[in-house]
């Protein structure tokens, strides 16, 4: 069980998370969506103990927590295979076991054998993110935390990795918490969507999706997104996102 209990957090005078509570039961796949500045990444970092909340507490009862960062964060001086095996090395496994496990996982994430001997800068962006996913999965986590893991990828690659990851999580009965600003992505990959906003700061809506992942075709995703956006609180949060993206485009 992962539990945020009325957590608040401030960076200096700025409050980035206010009285946030959420419980994630084992086996659940949850998405936290919202505009930038709503505190979703902050909440996720607390679950990984990267950040200590200013107020409240976060209880993480899972035995192995893994984290996928928005950028791949690979060690530039280590080959792909050793990057995948990083977490296993931290667990004290020997080199043979580490490489064996890394190779097996790389194959499941459709990384080519000869890519494993390359250094990160020799890999494409999509391959690097695959390595980063493989590294997170290699430690066989029971809780996987993912901070916008697909946001830097182009649309085709994004879909491909989403499907791959969802099927991996689903088959291994992992618990997963995604953070994303993309509502359609959240609908595609999660069983419950938590919508957060900046004004008011915090959780504004929660929505469960029963549909099995394989049956979530495009019409279903668009329909669910439309349903969600018809909720006032959700549309407020997301119009703000639209404003942000349009100002970015104008520049």
């Amino acid at each position, binding site marked *: 069980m992962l539990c945020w209990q009325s957590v608040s957090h401030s960076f200096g005078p700025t409050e980035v998370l206010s009285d946030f509570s959420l419980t994630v039961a084992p086996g659940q796949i949850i998405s936290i969506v919202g505009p930038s500045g709503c505190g979703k990444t902050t909440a996720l970092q607390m679950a*990984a*103990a*990267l950040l200590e909340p200013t107020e409240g507490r976060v209880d993480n009862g899972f035995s192995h*927590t*893994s*984290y996928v*960062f928005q*950028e791949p*964060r690979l*060690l*530039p*001086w*280590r080959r792909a295979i050793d990057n995948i095996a*990083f*977490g296993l*090395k*931290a*667990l004290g496994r020997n080199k043979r076991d580490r490489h064996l496990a890394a190779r097996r996982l790389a194959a499941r994430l459709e990384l080519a054998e000869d890519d494993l001997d*390359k*250094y990160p*800068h*020799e890999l494409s962006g999509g391959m690097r993110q695959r390595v980063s996913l493989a590294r997170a999965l290699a*430690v066989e986590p029971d809780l996987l935390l993912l901070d916008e893991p697909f946001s830097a990828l182009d649309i085709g690659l994004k879909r491909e990795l989403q499907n791959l990851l969802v099927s991996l999580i689903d088959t291994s009965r992992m618990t997963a918490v995604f953070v994303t600003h993309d509502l359609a992505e959240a609908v595609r990959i999660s069983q419950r969507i938590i919508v957060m906003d900046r004004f008011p700061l915090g959780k504004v809506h929660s929505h469960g999706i029963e549909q099995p992942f394989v049956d979530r075709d495009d019409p279903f995703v668009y329909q669910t997104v439309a349903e969600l956006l018809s909720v006032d609180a959700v549309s407020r949060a997301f119009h703000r996102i639209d404003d942000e993206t349009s100002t970015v485009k104008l520049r």
Partner: protein
Amino acid sequence: MKTALKDALAYLWDGWGAAVGLLMLIALWELGHTVYGSFVLPAPIETVESLASLQEAGKLGPAAWTTALRAIGGFLAAGLVGSLFGIVAGLSMTSARAVRPIVTVLLGVPPIAWIVLALLWFGPGGMTPVFTVVVTALPITFAAAVEGSRTLDQGLEDMARVFNAPFLMVLWEVHLPHILSYLFPAWITALGMAWKVAVMAELMASDSGIGAEMALARVNLETGEAMAWVIAVVGLLLAAEYLVLEPIKRKIEPWRRTGQGRMRKMGGF
């Protein structure tokens, strides 16, 4: 075994470009000799002959050894102390800022000024060259180490924390390679500096080593011999850099070498 052979061949192949440059330099030297004559610029072959006769007279080995000990000893001391203190200083923003002007001042003092001071403090002898080497090489390695540890990647550190990597592993896998990528160029610069400064200090303030022998050659107006000593110093420096530092660098920084795709193409591969 096969890859080792391939690596060795690649290393030699990389040397082709350098060999071309070197041969061109020797050709220019020969040209200078034909224009100005042996007294101003002895021919390359004459220089090699003087070098050989110095060797026969049993002067080359001991002088080179003395200078090498001073240069390398001073360099090692400066490298070790500068790197360690630099890393520690760079860990805190405040101390990094505090040491910046000190480093700038130390880097700004010309080596010749240190030689004068060292002469006053230690007198003529072995200590003056060693001290001068240490004091000129130290700020170089120190500044690089500060920069290296100041720019440690917080993102990678967080990544390591997520995986509960033990402290030593974080140091070895995450921090050290980053710091080394700053330190290596500085060590190479410092080593080159160490040779030059050691010879200079010997020339001014010592009666042993290559520098002292050069002073002697100058007094006797032996241009050929002076030139031979220059060659000896350069040869020692090249040996230290390409037989010791460069192979170490290749061993621990292959992730940089593979990035030079354009360079490799230029090399003919």
